[in-house]
């Protein structure tokens, strides 16, 4: 029996990115509600149409239970899968599978957070402190940049990657962000400006790090039958892959990510190769995250990421592999300290031809979005999606 596939069975009908980057006057549930309404309106649907809801650690309270009540949803399918910033891509995979199986017609995925102006922080802190690894990692002053710096330092040691090469990732993101009126940082920066910005944790400078913003986003996935009834360009999900990479009992290799496994799964399901992809949204918590992910997704050889991203390869249009045309987490938005949602949103914009005109990839037929949740330094949830303009 051939394997069951979700290829083309589920379509992204609605996307929404909150335009706010500082939202001191809103609660977390309010932001979830705003982005839910935005994505449903984009699809031409309402809250009453939703039968499945997906939330992660940023959802307050009891996750889907609390949010279903607050949003007024009548649900027969829920999923609170938590893999950090990649959770929303995992949710797309799970929603696509549930739609393919006939369990779900309209799935809603939301993200909201206020790390910039305070209020309730992201959930999961109680779970973190009781983790079996907690006392062997939390006692040593590991900040988020510090952890990613450990991966960057080892990558530099093994492959000769340079700070200037990492800076190219930020330069490309900033080149795109100048065209995004909502981007938190809209100034184009140079390699020199990146490498002369203050060192946070060697070898990562301040401009190697993503922004901290309030905000959120939402996605609406629908079945083929629902999509046929909508007056909106729906983007089919062609391939999905998820993988957890952890420390393997102390045998951690810091130079690769879970994309080495999630990528091939997604490409195989979609029936495409990296060379077929027109646009990529790569989770860019830090510049090193992008460089390692591109290698692990086989857009270039392992260790050659530094050379690959040089000379404007990631810039749109015209670069070999246009990436993060909204400015990404490095410049545009990193709501709730979780970058997966906006990666899917911008990939859908590209496939619909609705990206900012200056950065729209001509004839964008195939797009890839990749999320990395957790930390490159310890354990991560990696998720890859391949989406098409049409089935």
């Amino acid at each position, binding site marked *: 029996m051939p394997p069951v596939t979700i290829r083309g069975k589920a379509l992204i009908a609605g996307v929404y990115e909150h335009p706010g980057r500082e939202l001191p006057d809103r609660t977390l549930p309010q932001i979830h509600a705003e982005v839910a309404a935005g994505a449903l309106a984009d699809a031409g649907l309402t809250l009453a149409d939703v039968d499945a809801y997906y939330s992660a650690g940023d959802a307050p309270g009891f996750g889907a239970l609390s949010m279903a009540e607050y949003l007024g949803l009548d649900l027969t399918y829920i999923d609170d899968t938590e893999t950090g910033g990649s959770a929303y891509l995992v949710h797309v995979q799970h929603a696509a599978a549930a739609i393919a199986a006939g369990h779900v017609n309209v799935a809603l995925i939301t993200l909201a957070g206020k790390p910039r102006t305070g209020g309730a922080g992201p959930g999961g802190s109680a779970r973190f*402190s*009781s983790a*079996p*690894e*907690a*006392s*062997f*990692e*939390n*006692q*040593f*002053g*590991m*900040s988020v*940049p*510090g*952890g990613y*710096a*450990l*991966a*960057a*330092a*080892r990558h530099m*040691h093994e492959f000769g990657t340079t700070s200037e090469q990492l800076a190219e990732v930020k330069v490309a993101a900033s080149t795109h962000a100048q065209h995004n009126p909502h981007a938190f940082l809209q100034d184009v920066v140079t390699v020199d400006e990146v490498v002369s910005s*203050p*060192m*946070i*944790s*060697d*070898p*990562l400078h301040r401009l190697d790090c993503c922004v901290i913003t309030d905000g959120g986003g939402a996605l609406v996935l629908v079945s083929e039958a629902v999509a046929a009834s909508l007056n909106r360009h729906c983007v089919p999900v062609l391939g999905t892959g998820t993988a957890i990479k952890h*420390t*393997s*009992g*102390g*045998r*951690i290799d*810091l130079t690769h990510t879970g994309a080495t496994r999630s990528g091939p799964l997604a490409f195989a399901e979609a029936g495409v190769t990296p060379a077929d992809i027109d646009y990529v949204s790569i989770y860019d918590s830090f510049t090193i995250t992008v460089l390692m992910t591109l290698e692990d997704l086989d857009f270039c050889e392992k260790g050659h990421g530094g050379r690959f991203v040089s000379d404007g390869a990631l810039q749109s249009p015209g670069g070999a592999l246009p990436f993060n045309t909204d400015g990404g987490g490095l410049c545009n938005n990193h709501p709730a300290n979780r970058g997966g949602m906006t990666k899917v949103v911008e990939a859908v914009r590209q496939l619909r031809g609705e990206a900012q005109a200056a950065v729209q990839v001509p004839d964008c037929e195939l797009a890839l979005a990749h999320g990395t949740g957790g930390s490159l*330094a*310890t354990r991560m949830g990696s998720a890859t999606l391949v989406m098409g303009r049409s089935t």
Partner: protein
Amino acid sequence: MSELGQFGLPVPPPTVNLETQRFWDATAEGRLVLPRCDNSGDVVWYPRERCDGPGSNSVTWFEASGRGTVYSCTVTRRIPGSWRKAAPFVLAYVELEEGPRVLTNIVGCDPETVHIGQAVQAVFDPTPDGPALLRFTPA
């Protein structure tokens, strides 16, 4: 957590549980005790009462050498919260002679001199509760 230890770094007490009691009890005596998989012989990190290999999941605890080399390191210069006053400090993975790579700090030296491949030796940094944190100093 406002107190700094003998190396100028915070010494937050660990959470000790039934699976990690042996490890933390030994640190209080200045000894590094680790679990080894009864099946594969691999040394398991973080310390726990099980290994993740095939077959039996039992482990036997033994005293390790405390010798290792720096697998990766970073000088953290900016960090919020209780570690701010300890910066700059070295966060590192040390590969123990017995195999595992452990997250730690390199102490007792100029942070700028620490590098990948450097030989290091375990030191035990006491916390107020008794257990000591496993840190390393140049060998």
